[in-house]
C-alpha cells in the first residue's frame, strides 16, 4: 500500500471519486425529473406526447452510453456550441451530466411505467368516477402507489448510474477509472493494491446501497 502514502496519489484518488459523486448526484436528479416527465407523457391522452416518449426511450435505451457521451462532446459542445463553463473540466462534467441524465431517464421512465402497471385498474377507475382529471388521477392516486413498487428497480438504476459515471472519462474527465489507469501506469509494481482500493471503494459503497434499496422496497411495498 506504499502507493497511497504519496499524497499526490491520494489526491488523484480523491479527485476521481469526487467527480463520480458529483456526476451521480446531478445525474440522478436530472434522470429522475426527466424520467417522471417521460413516463407521464407515455401514459398521457395526447398522442404526440406518447410518441415523443416512446421515441426517446427507444433511441436512448438502445444506444451505448459511450456513444451518447461522445455525441454530447462532438455534437452538443463542438457543433451546437453548448458551453456550460469556461473551465474545460467543468464543461466536460456538465456534458457528462447531460449524457447520463438523458440515457438514464429512458430507464427511469420504463421502470415507472411498469410500476404504474402494478396499480390495480380499479384505483384509476374509482378516481375517474369521483371526477378526477388525468393529472389528478396520475399525481394523487396512481403515482404515489406506483412509486412504492418501483423503489427496487429505481435503486438498481441509480446504482448503475453511479457505475456508468466512469464512462464520462471518455471525454477526458479525470474521474476514478482514469485516475486508476494513471496510477497503474505510474506504479507498475503495485497494480493489485491500486485496483483493490478503487474497485473496493465502489463495492463498499454500492453493495450496502443495493441491500438498502431492497430493504426499503420490502418496507414500502403495498400489501395486496
Amino acid at each position, binding site marked *: 500500500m506504499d502507493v497511497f502514502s504519496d499524497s499526490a496519489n491520494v489526491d488523484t484518488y480523491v479527485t476521481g471519486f469526487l467527480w463520480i459523486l458529483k456526476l451521480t448526484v446531478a445525474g440522478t436528479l436530472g434522470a429522475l425529473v426527466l424520467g417522471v416527465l417521460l413516463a407521464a407523457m407515455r401514459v398521457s391522452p395526447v398522442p404526440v406526447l406518447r410518441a415523443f416518449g416512446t421515441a426517446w426511450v427507444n433511441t436512448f435505451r438502445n444506444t451505448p452510453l459511450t456513444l451518447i457521451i461522445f455525441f454530447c462532446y462532438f455534437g452538443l459542445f463542438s457543433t451546437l456550441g453548448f458551453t456550460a463553463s469556461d473551465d474545460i473540466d467543468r464543461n466536460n462534467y456538465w456534458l457528462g451530466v447531460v449524457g447520463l441524465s438523458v440515457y438514464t431517464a429512458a430507464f427511469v421512465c420504463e421502470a415507472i*411505467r411498469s410500476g404504474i402497471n402494478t396499480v390495480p385498474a380499479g384505483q384509476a377507475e374509482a378516481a375517474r368516477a369521483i371526477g378526477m382529471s388525468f393529472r389528478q388521477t396520475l399525481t394523487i392516486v396512481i403515482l404515489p402507489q406506483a412509486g412504492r413498487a418501483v423503489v427496487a428497480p429505481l435503486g438498481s438504476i441509480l446504482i448503475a448510474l453511479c457505475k456508468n459515471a466512469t464512462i464520462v472519462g471518455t471525454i477526458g474527465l479525470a474521474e476514478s477509472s482514469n485516475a486508476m489507469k494513471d496510477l497503474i501506469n505510474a506504479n507498475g509494481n503495485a497494480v493489485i493494491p491500486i485496483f483493490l482500493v478503487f474497485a473496493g471503494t465502489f463495492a463498499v459503497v454500492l*453493495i450496502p446501497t443495493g441491500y438498502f434499496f*431492497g430493504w426499503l422496497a420490502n418496507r414500502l411495498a403495498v400489501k395486496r
Partner: protein
Amino acid sequence: MSADAVLYDHPGPRAKLRNLILTIVFGIGLLALLWWIYSKFDEKGQWASTLWKPFTASSTWTDYILPGLLHTLEAAAVAMVLSLIFGIVFAVGRLSEHWWLSVPAGIVVEFFRAVPLLLLMFFIFFGVPFLTQQPMSVFWAVVIGLTLYNGSVLAEAFRAGVKSVARGQSEAAYAIGMRKGQVMQYILIPQAARAMLPVIVSQLVVLVKDTALGYIISYSELIQLGVNNLSANFGNVVQAAIVAAIIYIVVNASLTAVAGWLERRTRRTGKAPKAPGQAVPAGVVQTGEAAGAV
C-alpha cells in the same frame, strides 16, 4: 392494469380541444428545437454533402463500418456464451449447501456486480500486463471484462429464477430419489431459465451496448472503426456517430423485440413459474422490462 385508456375518460368536446391545443403547442416547441439544431448544424456546415457522401460509397462500409460491427458482434457473441456459463456456475455455487462454496461464490458475484465495467477493463488491459509481463490482447480484455460483469448479473438472475420455482417441484424430485445435482440439472435450471428468459435477453442487450467500452481501450469495434477512424479521414465525426447510433439501435431493438416475444410466449403457455416479485432477497435482480438492465 393496462395504462392505456384507464387513466382518463373518453375525451369529450372540451378535452378534445385541450388535447389539440397541447398537441399544437408541444408540436411547435419540438419543431422549433429541431429547427434550431438544423440551423446550428447548417451554420457549422454539417449538412455539407462531402460529410455525408462517404456513407454512400461501398468502401466506407467494407473498410470501416462492417468490420467494426463484426468485431463488436464477435466480442459480444463470445462474451455472451462465456457469461452464460459463468452465470450458471456461480448461481449453482451460490445456492450450494456447503458454505465453503456458497460464500466465495457470493463474494465474487457481489464484487463484480458492484465494480464499474470500465474500471475492470482498465485493470485487465493496463494492469494485468504488469503482473504477467506479457501484453494483454485487447479482444480478451474486453471479453473477460464483459464476462465477469454480465456473468455476475446473470448469476443473480438465475438464482432468483431457481428460487422462484415452486418448492413442490424439488420436493417431488427428491421424493422419486433424485440426487441434489440431478434436481438442479433436470428440474430447477430448466424452469428457472424459462422464467428468467426475458431478463437474460435484456441483459444480453446490455452486453452488446457495453462492447462500446472497448472503444476506450482502443478495441477496433464499431465506434473505434466506424466513428473514430472514419472521421479521421473524412472529418465527419457527428455524421459517423449518428450512423453508428442507428446501427446500435437497430441491433438492440431487434434483440429487445425478441425478448418481448419470448415474454409473451412464456406467459401464454403458462409454463413459467410466477415471476419472482417482492419476495426475493435484497439486491436480487427482478423480472420486468426495466429490471436493473442499464
